[in-house]
């Protein structure tokens, strides 16, 4: 009976340790993916800002071109 109790408690410990290890792995994978997504999002946001700014520059140059060639269009 004693042996059985000891065996049951050991089994529980082993199972709990095993499951917590796999849970840890999942969390680690998620954390790595979140970090990757964060850094990609940052570079996308920076790129969007630059694109927006340069697009506005082209738009204003186009407006000047329109004004310059107004009578000839």
């Amino acid at each position, binding site marked *: 009976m004693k*042996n059985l109790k000891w*065996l049951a408690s*050991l*089994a529980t410990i*082993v*199972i709990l340790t*095993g499951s917590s*290890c*796999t849970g840890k*792995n*999942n*969390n680690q994978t*998620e954390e790595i*993916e*979140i970090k990757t*997504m*964060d850094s*990609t*999002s940052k*570079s*996308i*946001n920076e*790129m*969007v800002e*630059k*694109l*927006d700014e*340069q*697009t506005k*520059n*082209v*738009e204003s*140059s*186009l407006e*000047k*071109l*329109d004004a*310059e*060639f107004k009578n*000839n*269009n």
Partner: protein
Amino acid sequence: MRNLKTIINISTMKKYITGLSLFLLFVTVITLTSFQQDDRNKNQNKNNQDKKEKNNQGKKEKISTKSESDDKMDQKSKKDKNNNSPMDNEKGKGHYKKINSKDYDYNWTIENFKDRNKNKNNEKVLICHKFNSNNESQVTIRVSSNAIKAHMNHGDIMGECPPFDNKGYSNNYLKNRTDYYNTIEVGRDQMYYSQSILDYALERLTGSRQQLVVMQNNNMPVAEIEKKQETIVVLEKNVSLLETLINVAANILVDKLQ
């Protein structure tokens, strides 16, 4: 004496059974863990293979669209042979060919360009975007109405995602993934809008250069011609920079959502 032997045998047997069951338990736990690890590795390998296949497909598509656009560019460059400028050389390089003009609905003219802020597509819709190699998980994201078709082709559904078991992902992870896709969508919208402005600017440049030649032939005052030429040069510089930026953006964004 016999009783003693029996007792010793029983206790030895108990020890053996205990030891054996402990061993079996360990073996079971280790096997289960390795199976889980194998599954995860298999899934990861599958994901990597899928990504590779998609990349290869994307490359093939890019190559085919490249050759089509190369033909168009060749035709255009033949037309523009008389108007040599740095932009013609840039066009020949085709930095921005990765984006297909059919992907956006903008078609700028002198008239609607003036009201471009009104004509800019700001309409957003909610879609249920699926991710993972087998589209097993999903998040609700906001996309431009122009991008709906591409998402539908990828297996997404219109509207918010129904309640669904996201294969054990944490809420924090799903929130991050939603934000990530929304950021990509904003980037893609900006890229397509910039591309449409770039295309329009290239068209206008060609037209303006031709007009300038006509003006020169009509003996227009040199000062006026120089002034007009200056505006063309400024636009050329800005267009060239925009072209480079779009190329960078395309490298970051193309195939990100697929």
